[in-house]
Each structure stands twice: as C-alpha cells, then as structure tokens.
C-alpha cells in the first residue's frame, strides 16, 4: 500500500523498510527529468528532511524523506536514465529505500484517496 506526503513523495512499506519515490503528479509537474542525485546508502534523515534532488529541464526539486530512518538501498538506474522516473514514477522509477525508525510517523501520511483529493 502506498502512502503519500503533501510534498508529493510516495512510500511503500515492506516490513520495516519503505521504498520512496515521487508521485505521478510530481513528475508530471516537473516535466522531463534530466538529473537525479540520490542519497548515500547509510545516510540518516529525519522525517521531512531533504534526502535527494531531482531536476527537470526547467527546475530542481528536493525530495523529502517521508519518514525518518536510514537509507538501505538506492536505485542507480534512475541516475543513468532519469526519464525512468517520468515513465514509471511508482515502479521502476523509485529512488531509495529507507529503514523506518518510527512506524508512528507513517500515520501522519495520506492514503491514496486523501492524496488524490490534494492534487485534484
């Protein structure tokens, strides 16, 4: 199940690890991505901290950690092919995985319905 932030990230929880990316709405708004800078494996972030950067032809955007925790894996494919984020923002275009420090932080995120209303 996906959870969403007001800043247009998604997180998919599997056990105590969440996979993070930007939403279809965010990729649509940014347009064609040309650069992705991922966090380092082992980097630790608080909830809402800037974790990495995505840049389209037009603009740069921060990607914020949907929950606090430690980065366990990054998707290097999107560094070589930023367009994968546009083509498949919630699939092959995921950005990083984070080990969730405090599961209670997930409660503050939106479900698909609530996020759908936000971006309507």
């Amino acid at each position, binding site marked *: 199940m996906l959870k969403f932030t007001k*800043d*247009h990230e998604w997180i998919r929880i599997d056990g105590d690890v969440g996979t993070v990316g930007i939403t279809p709405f965010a990729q649509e*708004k940014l*347009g*064609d991505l*040309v*650069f992705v*800078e991922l966090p380092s494996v082992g980097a630790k972030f608080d909830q809402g901290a800037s974790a990495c*950067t995505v*840049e*389209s*032809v*037009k603009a*740069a955007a921060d990607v914020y950690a949907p929950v606090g925790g430690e980065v366990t894996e990054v998707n290097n494919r999107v560094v070589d092919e930023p*367009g994968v984020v*546009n083509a498949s923002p919630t699939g092959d275009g995921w950005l990083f995985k984070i080990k969730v420090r405090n599961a209670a932080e997930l409660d503050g995120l939106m479900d698909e319905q609530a996020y759908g209303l936000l971006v309507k």
Partner: protein
Amino acid sequence: MAQRDAAPALRHTPLHAMHVRLGARMVPFAGYDMPVQYRDGIIKEHLHTRAAAGLFDVSHMGQIALHPRSGRGEDAALALETLVPGDIVGLASGRQRYTLFTNAAGGALDDLMVSRQGDHLVLVVNAACKEADETHLREHLSSACRIERLADRALVALQGPQAEAVLAAIAPEVRAFRFMEARTITLSGAACLVSRSGYTGEDGFEISIPAGSAEALCDALLGDRTVAPIGLGARDTLRLEAGLCLYGADLNPATTPMEAALEWTIAPARRTGGLRAGGFPGADVILRQLAHGAARRRVGLRPEGRAPVRGGAPLFRHEDDAAPIGAVTSGGFGVSLDAPIAMGYLPVDAVAPGTRVFAEVRGRRLPVVVSQLPFVAPRYKRH
C-alpha cells in the same frame, strides 16, 4: 507548490485557445498565460525542432512601427540611431538587424529586432520590456516619428530544417528569403511580415500576422505532419544551445554590449571614426570598452558533471575561494548535447575556452569549463 493568491489576471495571445486545444501546460510568463510545453514535453519538442520543424507562439512580444513624420524612411532610421548602436540608416528595405536599446551607462535596456519596410521601421521587442520600450520611444522619438503599437497582431515562429519546405508549400516565395530578410507576403489571406530569423539557431521564419488570421495560419502549418507545436520550455533550451541571450537573465541594464560579447552589434558606422560615430546613449562607455576592453565577459560554460547549473549560481576561481568572481546568468540542460550547459559572466582573465572554474550549487562547488559559444552550430540560411 504553494498557491499564490491575488495574482493579476494574465493576458491571452490570439492563439491561447489553440494552445489549450493542443493540450499545452500553461504558465504565467511576462504577464501572459503561455504554453511552457505541449503533450510531447520539452525534450521531444526540442529534438523535433532540430530534426524537423517547430511552431512557436511568441505573440507576447511587442511589435512597434516607427513612421517618420517627414515620410522619409531615413529620418526614422536616423531617429532610432539616437537610441541604439546599430547601423539603421544602412539597413536596406526588406532587411532586419539585431540591436540593443542602451542606457547612459552603456547598459542594455532591451534587445530587439529592427527591419526596414519601405518608409518605416518595424521593431520586435521583449514582452517584459514592451511597455517601457514604447515609453522610451515616445519620450525620445515623438518629434521625428509616429510610434504605432501593432497590438492587434500575433507573432509566430516556424523553426527547424524543414521550416522552409513547410512554409514554401503555402508561399513558395519564402524559398528566396535569406537570413534576416523581412518582407510582407500573403499567408492565409492576410498580409504578413515574414522574416528569415529566429531564436533557436535553426533556419526558420518569424511571421507577424493579423490576430484574426493567426489560428488559421497555425492550423495550416500544423496540418503538415513535420510541424509540432513547441512551448517556451524548449524555446529556452534551444536558444541556450544557440548561445543567444535572454533579456533579464544574460542581459540587463548593467550589462554593456562589450561585456555581453555583443560588440558585433556596434556597427562600424557608429564606432569611433565612423560615418555616424556615437550618438547613442552610453556611447562614451561603449566605445571606450570597444577600444580598451571590458573587465568581464559573457561566456559559455559546460559543467563537468551531469548536474545542471542554473542562473544565479555564483562562480569561483578556485574550489575553496570565499569570494565569487562572477555568476551564471542562464543554465540548464542542452537537450541536443545531452549535457548541462550554461552562460555566465567572468573576469576577462578567466574567459579563455578550457578555463576551469567552480559553480556553487546547493552548497557544493561543481567544476565547470569555459566553452565556445554557441554550443550547437547555427544553421542559418546566409547564402
């Protein structure tokens, strides 16, 4: 993504409904609601323009006619020469030239295209400057010229290697136009001022057309499958690759022609010792810089990495220097080069191609290399 409240109402070009119909994403630009991209997106639109032909709506730009009160075209040209360093008197009817409005300090108030059309001149100026430019013209030239705002006209650009074939299919005479030729011909039943020029580095045309005929012309052009509509996003990446200045970014009231590497716009006739030397605002500063050089200069910049370096980024001589020596004025992604590119200003001792300097991006110093402009060779039809 915060909502801005109480934004002033945006103006529409005569082609606004067409943009919406074509699925454009509209954004505010210079007070207008303009298409930043259509359904294909900026990368495909950019590549399509370089490979085939792209159609741009630039109707937000200002179109102004200068009619000499004497009826003699040369009097309009002499009058305009009091505001620009270009050779306007020497501009033959049917020819167009790029020039600058300068201020007393030698800075650029705007950059513009001027064409001579028989007894009058037609100016195309930047959207964000057009009211100020018109005021400037009225203040200084009203005694010599009647200044007519051509408000009820659209302006579209057809750019790319297929532009000639596409436009010639409905107006064969355009094949004979050379680069910077500007003449009135009939398109879609309307008298249009067509020039062989543009803002992409490609061959192509800019077409001034009565507002009421603009959509019919665009429909006819888009009916050719080689033509795609192109938004302002790709317009910016195309002009950056072509090394062309964006007013407000690469040019402003504090940048002189010499600093901006636009000394070629200062005509021989207007230089020291020329037939009509000086006589434009800031001539003392500009002609002194022409003789002795300026302290800084606009250059091309190629980041060594993949990260785009954008306008505003400070530039440093060494990676750990405290004080910047210049700044990036335009930067982004060169789609045809598949690499980030930028332009900026550096001291003249750091402008040799190959010089390595550092741009600060998100608190880090990224190496960038001074590069020849343009980044992509132009394909103008100069013969």
